[in-house]
């Protein structure tokens, strides 16, 4: 998008850090309730997992995030060894979409977030 430098990020438009806390709960609930992917996210420490979900949401909404593509590769490599594939990726993206819609994020912004997420596919799946 040519106006990307001027336009506010989706992260800012949906309310920044305070809005993230609410989004994390909605998103994490969906992920944990989904038997296709919940096993990737089960952690004895739910707070720690929630913090990671927040890092994920901040990144895909264009918030302050310092992860590189290489970080994404390294961060998911152990999951790829456990069988992480396109089906899981699509499931996560589906929950992301539903979460944003439930929080009444306008459709064009949702689309922007999904585009950012899609851009991480190769790195996340280590291809």
């Amino acid at each position, binding site marked *: 998008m040519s106006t990307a430098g001027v336009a506010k990020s989706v992260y800012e438009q949906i309310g920044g850090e305070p809005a993230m806390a609410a989004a994390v*709960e909605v998103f*994490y*609930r969906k992920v*944990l*309730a989904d038997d296709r992917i919940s096993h990737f996210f*089960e952690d*004895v420490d*739910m*707070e720690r997992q*929630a913090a990671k979900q927040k890092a994920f949401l901040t990144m895909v909404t264009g918030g302050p995030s310092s992860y590189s593509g290489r970080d994404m590769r390294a961060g998911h490599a152990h999951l790829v060894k456990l069988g992480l594939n396109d089906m899981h990726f699509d499931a996560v993206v589906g929950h992301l979409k539903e979460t944003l819609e439930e929080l009444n994020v306008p459709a064009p912004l949702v689309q922007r977030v999904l585009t950012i997420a899609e851009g991480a596919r190769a790195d996340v799946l280590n291809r």
Partner: protein
Amino acid sequence: MAKVKHESRWYPLESGESVLDGLLRQGVSVPHSCRAGACQSCLMKAVGGAVPQAAQVGLKETLVAQGYFLACTCRPPEGTELEVAGAEALRVPARISSLSFLAPDVLRVRLVTDAPFDYRAGQYVSLVREDGLARSYSLASLPREDALELHVRVIPGGAMSGWLAAEAPLDQRVFLQGPAGSCFYVAGRPDQPLLLAGTGTGLAPLYGIVRDALEAGHTGPIWLFHGARTPAGLYLRDELRQLADRHPQLRYRPGVLAGGTRDIAEGPLDALIRAECPKPVGWRAWLCGDPQLVLSLRKKLFLAGLSLKDLHADSFLPSTPQVGASPAAAGAR
């Protein structure tokens, strides 16, 4: 290589080794129990050098500011030089003022400290024996009461619980470290529905929290679920019934896996909770006791709509023996 200085001697750490494991391996005695950052028995103080942030997770601000850290979760990066000291300065002397059984395998231990001991009902303390054996126990008493009260499940062969049940004399001198943990009542929303659930001695902190909430004038419904294998494990039943008779907002729900009666529900605790509290959205909850149960209830209640910030949990993680330690050495600790 990272190295740690303790009482004027340097000890090298192996790559990735925790300060606790490195010191124990080289013969330094450090109190410890869970080895998982949950019980705070292994608290130490950094007097020189920096500790990784991960080693201070869960500690009170005031302790963090003074350089305290948990030795079992402290894995200093290569090249670190760390000078450490024990947490003796934080230990409060106490003596055992009474020992009595609440159930065949539940011991009530009352303790009196020399100086006033500041805590919130439901927090836990580390009980440290004179020889350094340390285990954490939740407080069942209220701060206004004269003695501190613990409910200790007596485990066959248990170092601390076995000693308390069979050997410790009245007036025995011990030390307390703490309090710690965020399992306590927070005033400010007197009509919020509360859910308290625990199995076995997981009732200890809940017994403090429920009385604290009632005394603070909580008016909203308070559900207290206590689970045990059989009715014999449901201790303090009469006291809780009477408390519920005096406070209609309190709903006391004892449950067992086998041997239920008219007054005692039968079935897994999570099923009992789901049947009576199907939609706990906006509630506050406390879950205490068996780690497996706490973990699964936490997830179920979160999925049922409870917010993470309103979910308080204390897992009673057992002690973990030192890797490579002989069984005899582990038993002696």
